[in-house]
């Protein structure tokens, strides 16, 4: 009996040691670079050879990623939102700044840095946090679109109740609230149309 007790204790200690050590390694974030490079390549090939078309594609990828994230939050689907957040990080990484003026590049760099940090948090946080970061991200995307333009019409919508008033972008003028989801699905109004 005593032997058994000692055995359990010993293995518990060993396990703790192993976990502590492996935790350290496990937390190193894997780089998503190889994959993003591939995707980037694809985009370039798909689009026309002109510079403008490429730019449009990259901004479009970010806007589309943002919109599917918004849909996931509207649907109260935290897992899908996390997945969309991860894709958005990649889309931000793919953004090619060349072709924009110096001041635009500076602004876009700030937007990408901040936006991708928000997207990263969204990819590994519970719903409440995802929504907090979505608010910051929405501002980033809105400012980005002001520089890059958008091929599809977007609607800036606004909910006065969430966190002292919060805006988001939607591809439809129908209000579907990503900050509250089913709790208050239609709270908000269209504030502005962006072409």
């Amino acid at each position, binding site marked *: 009996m005593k032997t058994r007790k000692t*055995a359990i204790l*010993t293995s518990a200690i060993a396990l703790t*040691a192993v976990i*502590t*050590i492996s935790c*350290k390694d496990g937390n190193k974030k894997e780089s998503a670079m190889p994959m993003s490079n591939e995707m980037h390549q694809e985009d370039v090939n798909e689009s026309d050879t002109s510079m403008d078309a490429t730019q449009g594609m990259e901004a479009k990828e970010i806007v589309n990623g943002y919109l599917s994230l918004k849909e996931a939050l509207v649907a109260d689907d935290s897992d899908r939102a996390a997945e969309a957040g991860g894709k958005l990080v990649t889309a931000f990484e793919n953004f090619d700044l060349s072709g924009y003026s110096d001041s635009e590049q500076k602004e876009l760099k*700030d937007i990408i840095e*901040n936006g991708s940090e928000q997207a990263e948090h969204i990819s590994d946080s519970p719903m409440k946090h995802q929504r*907090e970061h979505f608010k*910051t991200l929405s501002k980033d995307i809105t400012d980005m679109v002001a520089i890059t333009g958008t091929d599809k019409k977007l609607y800036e919508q606004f909910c006065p109740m969430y966190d002292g008033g919060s805006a988001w972008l939607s591809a439809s003028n129908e209000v579907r609230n990503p900050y509250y989801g089913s709790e208050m699905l239609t709270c908000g109004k269209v504030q502005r149309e962006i072409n």
Partner: protein
Amino acid sequence: MKVLKSIGWILLIAFVVIQFIPTKRNQSDSVSKADFLMVNTVPSSVRQTLQVSCYNCHSNNTDYPWYNKVQPAAWYLEHHIKEAKSELNFNEWADYSNRRKKSKLRSIINQIEDDQMPLDSYTLIHRDAILSEKNKMALIGYMTALRDSLK
């Protein structure tokens, strides 16, 4: 019994060996010009709170506890501090873009409101780092005003 004994020995030896693996200490002699407390006019009560409850991990200077001399505790701390600084380093405040500052301030406010910072694992040892309601109000008030002052 013989097997157990040898496992015990192996663990003991492993424990001793890992004590010799060095960790990078988070300490710097120079005072950063970009530091949050240098570039902002921070009231002394808020300054005090930030230094006691936040700066140990969110800056380039850590006042290490005794158990940092023992592995694997030192690894655990090193990892936490590295992650904390990549999220927010008060010593680099002035280098952040206004956009980033605003989003950091928003996160600071949210984390304090939700009692997510300082971490429980930190306040477990550092009892003085626990934020009182008064501390929280002062911090949130200051950070909100700072956020609103940024363009």
